[in-house]
């Protein structure tokens, strides 16, 4: 089975043992499931991406491939087999 990979931004890699990605396995069908798996495998990264109430932090963007999940189905966005998730800081500030 093809596994899903989450790419960790450089600024959070210290919370993932210095590694640039997390192998989430093949049992992941949605972004919510992917993030649940992230919680198990790299809780430090999870807590920087998600708030305590289970929402993606306001200035963090989650992509499935090239697609921002905010414009698809949010946490229910499907993740294809072998897909890649990207966590990226939004363009904001001043």
């Amino acid at each position, binding site marked *: 089975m093809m596994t899903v990979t989450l790419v960790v931004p450089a600024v959070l890699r210290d*919370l993932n043992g210095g590694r640039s990605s997390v192998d989430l396995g093949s049992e992941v069908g949605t972004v919510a499931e992917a993030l649940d798996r992230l919680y198990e495998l790299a*809780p430090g990264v999870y*807590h*920087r991406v998600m*708030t*305590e109430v289970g929402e993606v*932090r306001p*200035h963090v963007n989650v992509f499935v491939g090239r697609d921002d999940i905010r414009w698809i189905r949010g946490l229910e966005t499907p993740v294809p087999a072998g897909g890649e998730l990207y966590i990226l*800081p939004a363009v904001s*500030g001043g």
Partner: protein
Amino acid sequence: MQEANGIEAKSGDVLLLIGTTKGGFLLRSGARRDAWEMEGPHFPGSEMYALALDQRGGRRRLWAAPSNPFWGTTLHRSDDFGGSWSDKEEIPLRFPDDSGLALKRVWQITPGRDAEPDRLFLGVEPSCLFESTDGGASWKPVEGYLKHPHRDFWSPGNGGLCLHTILLDPERSSRMLAAQSTGGVYRTEDGGRSWNPRNQGVRADFLPDKYPEFGQCVHKVVHHDSRPERLFLQNHGGLYRSDDWGDEWRDIAHGVPSDFGFAMAIHPTDPDTVYILPLDGFGRWPVDAKLKVYRTRDGGGSWEGLGDGLPQEDAYETTLRDGLDTDTLDPAGIYFGTRSGKVFGSSDEGETWTLIKDGLPPVVCVKAAVIA
């Protein structure tokens, strides 16, 4: 960008911890306080509303609570004056998952009583008190505050719904006071299990009922350990004193150009000497754009403006609630920062002032300490 390497500080030095909207800075001086060196930024790009130096139990421990605009708020300690900091997730700081609350910002870091060197408190947004009993290694919300029956009625001011002030009874470990915006003053007599509002006499201009039981927008409360029951309160419109731990408050805004302001600080040895920065209630800058610190030396009976060395024209400066502090030397040093990135200081109890630093990001926190 230059890396922050920490600062060399020795016993007797004065240290200013400066929190800005873009990181933290350290300013160090000898006891003469006539020359300052700066080091930083620490956690560049992150809002730094809360900093503290804990010197209990032989420690020299800095605490910082940066709020990264992307990755949220974290808590860090340093035992080498900022040379190195604990990692992002080394000290977990979160609301319980079933609370329905998400941590937004830390507003206050308060080391506990000297007799309890492993106890610390945090005031956070959304309003809650967190406690550690293991020197800051782990934290949990104080249940009585987390589940306060007033929680659903508290509403945020412009700064957010923040618990910004924590005052401890130095003698009775069961008594402490917290203040938040909005909500007002709350006091516990049972070690945090229950919290009762203590706002009688404090005005709430923005509510139909001007003197409600709770809901006031209290900006800062101070007291001195030698007379802890005497409290001074800078309100969102109103300046008050209580002589009974907040049971009753009375107006002491006599002789100030405005009773609006954010910041307030107590003198390090005199429980009747208090410093404030009155501001125009709309512009949030000094009245007539003349920057003056006001001081009372008689418990609020009278106030005097102290502006020697401060700009007296076109000074559209704002000092926020944690932007004013005193050191513990004699004569006392008084320090404040502004939203335009200036830090002013006085080494003679406020009689004369100098500009210590300019060009910083907006200053939101100033903490002064003398290295033990």
